[in-house]
C-alpha cells in the first residue's frame, strides 16, 4: 500500500520545503547521495550529485528542463557501481530509459533509490533560460501547467512532451506528486519497501493523500495519447516513402548528436564512427560512379534507418534527439512513429518491467511464423 507524506509550502518556498526531504534522507543515512535537478549558481538547472546534507538548499526537482537525459547520468553513476546508495530524482521518460538500460546491464539498480517526479513537460534548454529570465519558477510552471497553460511568450514545452502519455512514473521506489495536488502542496509517495524506509528516515510525514491525483493523471495521459495519435497520423501521412524521408532528413549533417543524446542508443561504440565507415577515396568514387553523383557526407538515411532498427524497440519518446539536433530536423516524431510499429510487433513497451526480456535478446522456435509463412 502506497504511503504519502504531504509537503506544504508558502509562496516561493516549494524548493525550500522539498530540500528538507533530501536533507533528511542524507543526514539520516537513508542514502549516501542524491542525484537531483539543482539550481546552478547564476542560472540554469542541472542534475547534480549531492553527497553532503549541507548542499541540498538548491534542489529544484520540478524545474521544467532536462538538458541531458538523466538516464545517461544514471548509467555513468551505476554501470560500474560505487557501492554507495544513490537516490535519483528522474522524469518518467528517464525512469523508463533507466529500466531499459538496466536490462542492457548499463544501469545497476541495486543501490539505487528511484524517485520519479510528476512531469508536466519540459522546455528546451534555450527556452528554459528565457523562462527563467521572465521570472518563471517551478512553482509557477506547476500551477500554470496544471491549468493547461504551458506556453509562455513564444515558446512551449517540447513536441515530445506534448505527446507523452506517461506524466507519472511507474516502477519507482518513490514519487514526487504534483498532479492533482491542491495549491500550495506537493506529495511524496512511497511505493516500495525501500521507498517506505527512505521516507521514514527522511523525517517528512503525515498529511494524507492527494485526492484528485489518479483522475488528474488519467486525464492528462488521455489528452496526450490523443495528441500522440494525431501526431502519428500526421507524420505517417507526410512521410509515406523514402523520398519524403530524404526530404525530412535533408538538413541532417551526420553530426550524430541525436545518437549521443539518446538515452537508449545502447552501443558502447557506434558503428558509424568505427573503421567500418572510414572509407577510402576509391570507395566514395565507386559509389559516385553508380549514379554519377554522391551526396556528401553520405549515408545519412542509412544512419537514421540503422538507428531505428537498433533502438526503436526501446524508444521512450523523451525527445532528446530533437533537442540535440543543431539543424532542426525533429527526428522525434519519426522515431516515435517507428517505435510504435516495432514495439507493437513484439508487444513490447519499454520501461514496463525490468523482468521483461528485450525482444532482440531472445528467441523461440515456434514464434513469428508469419515472417517466412512456411510450415514444415
Amino acid at each position, binding site marked *: 500500500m502506497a504511503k504519502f507524506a504531504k509537503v506544504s509550502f508558502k509562496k516561493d518556498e516549494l524548493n525550500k520545503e522539498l530540500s528538507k526531504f533530501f536533507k533528511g534522507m542524507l543526514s539520516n543515512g537513508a542514502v549516501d547521495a542524491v542525484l537531483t535537478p539543482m539550481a546552478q549558481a547564476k542560472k540554469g538547472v542541472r542534475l547534480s550529485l549531492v553527497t553532503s546534507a549541507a548542499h541540498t538548499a538548491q534542489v529544484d526537482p520540478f524545474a521544467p528542463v532536462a538538458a541531458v537525459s538523466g538516464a545517461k547520468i544514471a548509467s555513468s553513476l551505476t554501470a560500474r557501481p560505487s557501492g554507495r546508495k544513490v537516490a535519483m530524482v528522474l522524469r518518467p521518460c528517464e525512469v523508463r530509459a533507466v529500466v531499459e538500460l538496466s536490462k542492457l546491464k548499463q544501469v545497476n539498480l541495486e543501490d539505487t533509490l528511484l524517485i520519479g517526479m510528476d512531469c508536466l513537460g519540459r522546455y528546451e534548454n534555450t527556452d528554459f533560460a528565457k523562462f527563467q529570465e521572465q521570472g518563471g519558477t517551478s512553482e509557477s510552471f506547476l500551477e500554470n501547467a496544471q491549468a493547461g497553460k504551458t506556453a509562455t511568450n513564444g515558446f512551449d514545452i517540447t513536441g515530445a512532451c506534448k505527446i507523452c502519455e506517461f506524466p507519472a512514473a511507474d516502477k519507482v521506489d518513490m514519487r514526487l506528486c504534483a498532479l492533482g495536488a491542491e495549491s500550495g502542496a506537493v506529495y511524496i509517495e512511497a511505493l516500495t519497501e525501500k521507498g517506505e524506509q527512505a521516507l521514514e528516515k527522511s523525517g517528512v510525514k503525515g498529511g494524507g493523500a492527494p485526492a484528485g491525483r489518479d483522475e488528474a493523471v488519467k486525464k492528462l495521459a488521455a489528452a496526450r495519447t490523443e495528441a500522440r495519435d494525431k501526431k502519428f497520423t500526421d507524420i505517417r501521412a507526410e512521410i509515406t516513402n523514402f523520398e519524403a524521408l530524404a526530404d525530412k532528413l535533408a538538413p541532417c549533417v551526420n553530426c550524430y548528436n541525436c545518437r549521443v543524446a539518446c538515452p537508449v542508443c545502447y552501443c558502447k561504440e557506434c558503428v558509424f564512427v568505427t573503421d567500418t565507415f572510414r572509407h577510402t577515396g576509391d570507395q566514395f568514387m565507386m559509389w559516385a560512379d553508380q549514379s554519377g553523383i554522391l551526396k556528401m557526407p553520405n549515408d545519412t538515411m542509412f544512419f537514421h534507418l540503422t538507428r531505428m532498427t537498433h533502438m526503436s524497440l526501446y524508444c521512450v519518446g523523451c525527445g532528446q534527439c530533437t533537442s540535440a539536433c543543431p539543424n532542426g530536423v525533429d527526428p522525434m516524431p519519426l522515431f516515435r512513429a517507428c517505435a510504435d510499429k516495432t514495439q507493437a510487433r513484439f508487444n513490447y513497451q519499454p520501461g514496463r518491467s525490468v523482468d521483461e526480456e528485450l525482444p532482440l535478446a531472445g528467441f523461440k522456435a515456434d514464434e*513469428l511464423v508469419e515472417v517466412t509463412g512456411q510450415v*514444415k
Partner: protein
Amino acid sequence: MSEFEPQIVAFFCNWCTFTAADLAGTSRLSYPPNLKIIRVMCTGMVDPKFVIKAFLHGADGVLIGGCWPGDCHYINGNLKARRRVANLTEVLKQYGIGEDRFWLRWIAASEGTMLQEVAKDMTEKLKQLGPSPLRNLGQIAV
C-alpha cells in the same frame, strides 16, 4: 523496351540454403539469374545494415535464406535472424519497402527444388511490382 529485370540481393547461409543452391546447380535445375547470391555463414550474421544498404543502393528485393528452425548449424542463429527480420520489416514497411520485397525463407540443404521455386516466385512477383522506389532516388538523397 526490354522487360524489367529485378535485382535481388540474396544472403544464403553456408550450411543450408547456399548448399541448396549448389544442389540446384548440380541437379541442373535452372533458376532466374536475378539473384545475386552472397554466402554468409549463418542468417544470424545478416546485420540489418546489410539489408538497408542493399535497398538504399537500389536493390529491388532482398532474400535471406537459411536453415529451418531446429536445423541451424549454430543452434539458433536463424531464430535470431527471424526476430531481426520482423523488426526490420516494420521499419522499412513505413516507407514502402514491404514484405513483398524483403523475404526470409527456410530452405534446407536438400531442398534444391524449393530454392528454384522461391527464386522463380520472387523474381516473378518483383517483375509485377516493378523497380524499387529507391532506384529513382539514386545516391543524391540517401
